[in-house]
């Protein structure tokens, strides 16, 4: 069954066609990579899935339900979480508080009950802190919970964004260049992490320029160029696809 399917997504900015009739499926519990040269429209596709952009036409179907044009926060509560290409952490807040933001949509306390801290809300709050610490431990940052997010290394900031996204208890995780700015060792760790995320029954869709990571971690790859899908298939198929080699990977020596 496919967790997410995109059907003929179209998005134009002024006269520029950023995404032209993109359709592809993401199978449940798979790890799918979306690759393509800079400006191919990868992030625009992500933004349409997460409700940051509304497509001009086409549909986004998540678990057999059309979510096209829904506001972002509702999409998050349906179970799609994301990270950003240009890291968007709350830089002046602590690591823990950043992750608590992700817990927010799973908490129920209203304005007054959260203010006056009834026992039930205190429990909920304590539970949220535990949940946040669990996600921090998962990405290996629990010992840094009280540091400012802005003081973390670049690679750790990327991991923190993943923890924050996981805290919203998603069934589907979208990672926009998770290895951007990471060194080789960190990228190696990230691959293990992505597999472990899938191990928690979360489907993963990622954009990445690090071909080593994409080829080793993804089960399916979709290649975008000039806003259109030019190829999709297993890493082995993509590696040998002449269209992809021409458009993106270049000819190997």
């Amino acid at each position, binding site marked *: 069954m496919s967790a997410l399917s995109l059907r003929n997504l179209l998005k134009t900015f002024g006269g520029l066609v950023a995404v032209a009739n993109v359709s592809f499926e993401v199978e449940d519990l798979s790890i799918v990579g979306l690759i393509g040269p800079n400006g191919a429209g990868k992030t625009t596709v992500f933004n349409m899935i*997460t409700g940051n952009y509304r497509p001009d036409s086409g549909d986004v179907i998540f678990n057999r339900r059309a979510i096209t044009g829904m*506001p*972002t*926060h509702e999409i*998050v*509560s349906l179970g799609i*979480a*994301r990270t950003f290409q240009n890291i*968007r*952490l*709350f*830089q*002046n*807040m*602590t690591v*823990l*508080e950043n992750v608590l*933001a*992700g817990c*927010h*949509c799973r908490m129920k*306390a209203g*304005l007054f009950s*959260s*203010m*006056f*801290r009834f026992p039930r*809300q205190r429990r909920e*709050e304590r539970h949220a*802190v*535990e949940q946040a*610490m*669990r996600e921090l*431990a*998962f*990405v*290996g940052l*629990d*010992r840094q*919970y009280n540091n*400012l997010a802005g003081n973390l290394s670049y690679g750790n900031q990327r*991991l923190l964004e993943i923890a924050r996204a996981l805290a*919203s208890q998603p069934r589907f995780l979208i990672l926009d260049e998770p290895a951007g700015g990471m060194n080789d*060792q960190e990228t*190696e*760790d990230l691959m*293990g*992490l992505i*597999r*472990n*995320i*899938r191990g928690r029954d979360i489907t993963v869709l990622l954009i990445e320029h690090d071909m080593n990571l994409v*080829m*080793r*971690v*993804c*089960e399916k790859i979709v290649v975008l160029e000039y806003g259109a899908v030019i190829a999709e298939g*297993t*890493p*082995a198929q993509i590696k040998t696809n002449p269209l992809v080699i021409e458009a993106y990977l270049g000819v190997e020596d």
Partner: protein
Amino acid sequence: MSAGAIKERCRELQNKRWFASAAFVCFFLFMALAPSLLDLFGVSGGGIAQLDMLNKIGISAALALSLNVILGQAGLFHMGHTAFFAVGAYTTAVLSTMYQWPIFSAMPVAGLLAAAIGLAVALPIIHLRGDYLLVVTIGIVEIVRIALMNNIFGITGGANGIYGIARPAIFGFVFNSPKSQFYLIWSFTALTVFIFYLLEHSRFGRALNYIKADDTAAAGCGINVARYKLAAFTLGAFWAGMAGTLYAANIRTIEPTSFNFFESVILFAIVILGGSGSIAGVLLGSFLLIGLQDVFRDFDSARMLVFGLAMMAMMIFRPQGLLPPRRRRYDARKLMGKYACGISRQCGAKYNPYDEDEGSAS
């Protein structure tokens, strides 16, 4: 003990979670003694002038704290807060003079009407960002002032305003003297601090801070940005309306000029200068901006010059304000190292649902 050690101990103390609450309790206990202290030191005129000034500061502090929710916590550039204050004051004045409502009954009505107007004006503009919102809110305060000036609905008394507003009374006790007014106003201010302190440390306050920091990221975390912004705006307007009631009952004669744009700017400055989002900062800002304005009254226009220069210096050397908000603290030390890790290298083989099967995909 050396100076360094003392400094270190002070820092430790400040980092305690109870430090802020304890500081507020001490502050309000001290304020409770203020009238007696004025008596004790035999301030000329029985300290009435000083009490009047403190009353003014107390009302401004409550009002600025209500703006702090909107501007300081949620980061909405709102420079029209006096409009809601005016709505509250005029509602109280009309209910008191035309319908003989007791002040305390008028108070919630004043708050609710201000909140309703706040919600109505915020709905179409809440999605505006930064400077755009600022310009629109400036418009709001002008519209309200001009409406009052033109005797809207024939009940605001035009440029003359409304006079003869009753004193607040409860169970036959009338808050008549400056001293009783002082206790009434500062009780309200203390209540304001209490309520907004709880708000700051709730899930709601946290959500506002996320929105202030980055509303796209906040939405991406599942926070309903528009709804929270509206809630902050409406709550701030509600509280400003209630502060308006106290103002009307304190001053007893209100006129449109008391609610002009300049007053809005001062409120804005109190929040920014004191420390955007910090309750203690806003209290300090109220004392400095309202109190010092009064102290330097004799210098007239020169005082505004000094004022402006001081503000410029502040924004250059201490843009976060005099007392910026403290970091929230969470009790999570015990939870460190307790949960499983998903990164093999850092945490060993604690978490490993999938065998590391390198190359299976390639």
